[in-house]
């Protein structure tokens, strides 16, 4: 669970950076890639003291409302940004016109960000994000999330344009804390009431340096450290009997320290080589005796801390073949240690596949050999990026059904334990195409993604989405835009029968969107409206467990005032 990913609202985001394979290793040892969410900063602009936006929207499928407020105040040397988002949704209607009970939610997200210019080249930044969700329905479960509360805070210092060898420095300390609890008290028929609270706390810091270019080399160095502690438990209250208690996440402490080095080598005008290296030490330990005893039941001795040393290496080569055409090749070796849940989860319920999961403290690190080829073609009106990628993952971690273990969570289909299988192959391709025509009045955009996974016996891996393509055509004229979208997902018949996966039918969904902006002297008023799932298609994605149907036709409207 990555708190920042779940608890970030789009209004707080500046950018999202997706890195495949080992490309994102500066963020931490990874095998599958990383998602780097950059939060929106306060903006220092002495010409605009106060700026901001207010938005309000309504969505018909779940009779939901969304209200957004973002404000930026700037003085000469400092600025403060405040934003808030409130969402409330009722139960949505699916494409068959049926109301999906317990799909409601309510959520409030607040963030405060401050910036202070210490000097021309250095600044201090502080961020605080508060995200409270409550009464979040899980329609496919016999219970909902009572509350989910996240607090994320950070303080950073940036130094730029230094004359010496150390040209740039970025230092950050951060802390985040997440608490959540399941709630079944709103359900009409509960066989047994249960409490399932959990929490996770993280404290970390990093220092990042960019050194003065030396010859063809640009060196970047980063060192980071974090401490994480998690715990979760479950108490069940059978009628007329003693309560039943267990630790689903026995208290676990993890300490990770890493060192990252990047060397960008500009070989000549047409080519560039990048070397990345990360080493990481990770130590994790079960801190409570009951958790150790629970694992003794499963046959594991977990008294000693588990220490791991992880190596990540990546080499990439970029060749500018012509002003229009670029080739980018990269390859590397990446490792990741098992997650806390994979190691120490004890009958943790996974709603993705409706199974209880037990951890395996003896799991080996996953080790992946990654390769990627990118072709980029772009002119002023046209760009096309084609990517092919593949990984051979050794000691791939996967949940295997344990018929001899019995389920803890009411309604779960079975128990799975994490295991290393000898190897797995993951490969696929992606395309992203953008074309502007008719004096840039029209923009045609198409993306598709194909991913295939196989285990060491060439059987399909579970939880792999089928080929999906999204095409949109946007018409722009002055302050008006109209957009038609089509989303096609193919049938997924490459399913893991061992895992109990079933084939999922393909679907086609159409969306219409429009927007108009009224410009006034000091304000700008944007109105957007559209229809999602225009033909009220009853559909579910392959990764939606229980094939719970997605929302049917959704008519929405949103008004935004910028000042």
């Amino acid at each position: 669970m990555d708190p920042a990913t779940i608890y970030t609202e789009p209004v707080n985001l500046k950018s999202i950076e997706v890195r495949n394979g080992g490309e994102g290793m500066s963020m931490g040892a990874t095998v599958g890639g990383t998602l780097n969410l950059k939060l929106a900063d306060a903006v220092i602009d002495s010409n605009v003291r106060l700026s901001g936006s207010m938005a309000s929207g309504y969505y018909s499928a779940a009779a939901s409302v969304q209200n957004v407020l973002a404000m930026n105040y700037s003085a000469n040397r400092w600025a403060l940004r405040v934003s808030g988002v409130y969402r409330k949704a009722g139960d949505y209607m699916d494409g068959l016109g049926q109301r999906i009970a317990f799909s409601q939610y309510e959520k409030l997200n607040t963030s405060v960000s401050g910036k202070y210019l210490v000097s021309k080249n250095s600044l201090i930044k502080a961020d605080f994000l508060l995200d409270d969700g409550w009464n979040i329905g899980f329609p496919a479960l016999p219970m909902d999330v009572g509350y989910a509360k996240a607090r994320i805070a950070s303080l950073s210092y940036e130094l730029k344009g230094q004359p010496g060898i150390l040209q740039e420095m970025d230092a950050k300390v951060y802390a985040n804390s997440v608490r959540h609890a399941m709630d079944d008290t709103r359900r009409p028929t509960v066989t047994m009431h249960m409490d399932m609270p959990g929490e996770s706390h993280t404290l970390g810091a990093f220092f990042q340096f960019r050194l003065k270019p030396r010859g063809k080399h640009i060196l970047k160095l980063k060192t980071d450290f974090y401490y994480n502690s998690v715990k979760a438990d479950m108490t069940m209250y059978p009628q007329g009997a003693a309560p039943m208690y267990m630790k689903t996440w026995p208290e676990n402490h993890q300490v990770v320290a890493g060192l990252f080095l990047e060397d960008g080598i500009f070989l000549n005008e047409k080519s560039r080589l990048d070397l990345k290296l990360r080493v990481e030490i990770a130590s994790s330990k079960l801190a409570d005796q009951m958790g150790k005893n629970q694992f003794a039941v499963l046959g594991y001795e977990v008294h000693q801390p588990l220490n791991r040393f992880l190596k990540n290496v990546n080499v990439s080569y970029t060749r500018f073949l012509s002003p229009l055409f670029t080739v980018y090749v990269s390859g590397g070796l990446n490792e990741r240690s098992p997650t806390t849940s994979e190691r120490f989860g004890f009958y943790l319920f996974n709603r993705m596949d409706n199974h209880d999961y037990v951890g395996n403290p003896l799991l080996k690190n996953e080790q992946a050999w990654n390769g990627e080829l990118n072709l980029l073609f772009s002119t002023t009106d046209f760009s096309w990026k084609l990517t092919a990628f593949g990984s051979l993952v050794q000691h791939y971690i996967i949940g295997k059904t344990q018929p001899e273990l019995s389920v803890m969570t009411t309604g779960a289909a079975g128990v799975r334990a994490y295991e290393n299988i000898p190897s797995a192959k993951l490969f696929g391709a992606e395309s992203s195409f953008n074309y502007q025509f008719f004096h840039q009045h029209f923009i045609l955009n198409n993306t598709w993604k194909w991913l295939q996974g196989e285990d060491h016996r060439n059987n399909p891996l579970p939880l792999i989405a089928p080929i999906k393509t999204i095409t949109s055509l946007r018409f722009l004229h002055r302050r008006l835009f109209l957009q038609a979208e089509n989303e096609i997902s193919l049938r997924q018949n490459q399913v893991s029968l061992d895992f109990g996966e079933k084939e999922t039918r393909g679907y086609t969904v159409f969306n219409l969107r429009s927007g108009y902006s009224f410009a006034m002297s000091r304000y700008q008023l944007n109105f957007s409206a559209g229809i999602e799932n225009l033909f009220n298609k009853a559909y579910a994605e392959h990764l939606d467990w229980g094939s719970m149907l997605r929302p049917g036709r959704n008519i929405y409207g949103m008004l935004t005032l910028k000042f």
Partner: protein
Amino acid sequence: MKKRYTIVFLLTVFAACKKDSNHTISTDPKEGLIKISEGYALGAATKVELWSQTTITTGHNKLFLALYDSLSNQSITKAGIQVLPVMDMDMNGMQMSHAAPCFQPESNQAENTLFPCAAVFTMPGAAAGQNKWSFKVTVKKEGQNNSAIALLPLEVKASLPARVKMISTADGAKLVVSCFLPANPKIGINEMELTIHRQQDKMTFLPVDDYVVSMTPEMPAMGHGSPNNINPVITKNGRYKGKVNFTMTGEWRINLGLSKAGQNLNTFFDLTF
């Protein structure tokens, strides 16, 4: 001057003695035990005391006997001892007695002045009245030819949930099965022990060593069990030892299957922690 030296010398001796006495830890063998009953073995000039770790309830109870010379009050550490729990019932004037399974002291030599033994009480009873339990202790002191009997009345409360079960075999015999766990069961692996006795007659219970026992714990409220349990296997004298695993607190039922020569018997024991 001489006097002063003497005082210094004495002080040193006292200090040394005090230090020494601190080092010898006096261990009372009966520490943590409860005295259940006492009586006299008439003819052997012996006072017999019965001690236990807990109050006595139906099921298996670990017991300790302490013997004293009734004249000198000196502890007797060597004696041949036979025990038998006896229930005397008065049913509207009709007298009836029966015994219960028990485990004799393993040696005629006391362990730290106590003789450990055990009994499996099959029903609750009082120390006096209509249904009364007594612990019959036959003592033969060293060097004496005759043995003497002490009858120690005791109260046995009903264990809840029951720690002892009486089941009938296909051939009509009666089995007494008792199950006991550590005083404080915990989440994780727990040592567990079973005793199995067959009733031969009212006063005789013989240990049965040749059952194959299978154990499946479950939580009746949820219908789930626990993995990696170790079925109890015979150690000796009708005692079977195994390991039972609890994955969470709450109410558990330990289901037992006893099989021998193609005959299968089932029973269960409940516990809550």
